[in-house]
């Protein structure tokens, strides 16, 4: 060959060698980079074995807490039934039968569609849409606040200012593993919010179930 580059003449074993070499060198360099990054600070590197973040589900928490030992605060907060009760769903009180109370935990909790709908119908939660504003504008759960995940994690002050009006927060995004809502959930907890629920099924499940939706950019 009279020039050092070619336009791709390799065939047969030479071609396979090349392909293997590219893949092997690339993978080795990538893992090497991760070794170096992890040596510098293990937090910045990637885990060699990925484990999806596991959240307790609200459903399992509520069944175990009603069956097992009650939380320490429950006896004091469970007064005798009030004949003048104007809060039939018991949203204001703890330890009621509504099943809509959320334990005050310093970590996000996972929540599934049926429970999400209960919260929605009872207006017992503040919904947060973690997707991009344009997706929010083209359809979201009615009343949801747009808090784009990426923007929010770069601007923690916005999360601290966010006021859930004393209700649990339900975060959702575009479905899948929904890391966006998962991350936003953790960020909200880090910003001092408690009772943060992550609806991992997100928008695809909600709209797929033909539940009410709302359009527009909102405020």
């Amino acid at each position: 060959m009279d020039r050092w580059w070619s336009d791709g003449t390799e065939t047969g074993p030479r071609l396979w060698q090349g392909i293997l070499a590219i893949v092997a060198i690339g993978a080795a360099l990538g893992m090497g980079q991760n070794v170096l990054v992890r040596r510098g600070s293990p937090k910045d590197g990637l885990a060699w074995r990925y484990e999806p973040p596991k959240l307790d589900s609200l459903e399992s928490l509520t069944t175990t807490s009603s069956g097992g030992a009650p939380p320490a605060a429950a006896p004091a907060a469970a007064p005798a039934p009030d004949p003048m009760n104007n809060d039939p769903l018991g949203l204001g009180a703890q330890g009621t039968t509504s099943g809509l109370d959320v334990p005050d935990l310093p970590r996000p909790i996972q929540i599934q569609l049926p429970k999400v709908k209960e919260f929605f119908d009872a207006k017992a939660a503040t919904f947060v849409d973690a997707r991009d504003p344009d997706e929010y504008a083209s359809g979201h759960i009615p009343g949801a606040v747009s808090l784009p995940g990426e923007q929010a994690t770069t601007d923690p002050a916005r999360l601290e200012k966010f006021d859930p009006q004393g209700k649990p927060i339900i975060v959702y995004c575009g479905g899948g593993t929904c890391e966006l809502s998962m991350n936003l959930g953790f960020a909200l907890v880090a910003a001092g919010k408690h009772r943060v629920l992550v609806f991992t099924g997100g928008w695809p499940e909600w709209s797929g179930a033909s539940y009410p939706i709302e359009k527009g950019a909102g405020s």
Partner: protein
Amino acid sequence: MRAFLMHPTVRRGAQILCGLIFLAAALPKIADLAAFAGSVHNFHLERVIPMAATNLLAMSIPWIELVAGLALVTGVRPRAGAIVYTVLLAVFTAGVVQAMARGLSFDCGCFGKAGAAKIGFQKLAENLGMLALGIVASVERR
């Protein structure tokens, strides 16, 4: 048309273009591996590959893109580079299609975080175009 697509100069041009595309895709991902790993998890591929292996993929793919991109641009084993490019793009395109089929919407992380492109028909069209370029770049010289 066929003769044009098989012309060595056209093939070499396609190879350089593919190489530049892969370099542009690889560098931002290498700079922010964690973001790319997040994108890979978003594709939700546990039926195809074990979730535990997705981080290994996330750290290898950008560097494989980089090495293949260099091979394509410099013309050292460009056909091997072109075939790696084409196969990877076919895999990426399949990922986009299955994500669309399940109605998922997220940033694919294809060119890193800055060029955030949502999974959708535009992304699909882009990928098909780049795939066609890869095929032109990898045909055998006769």
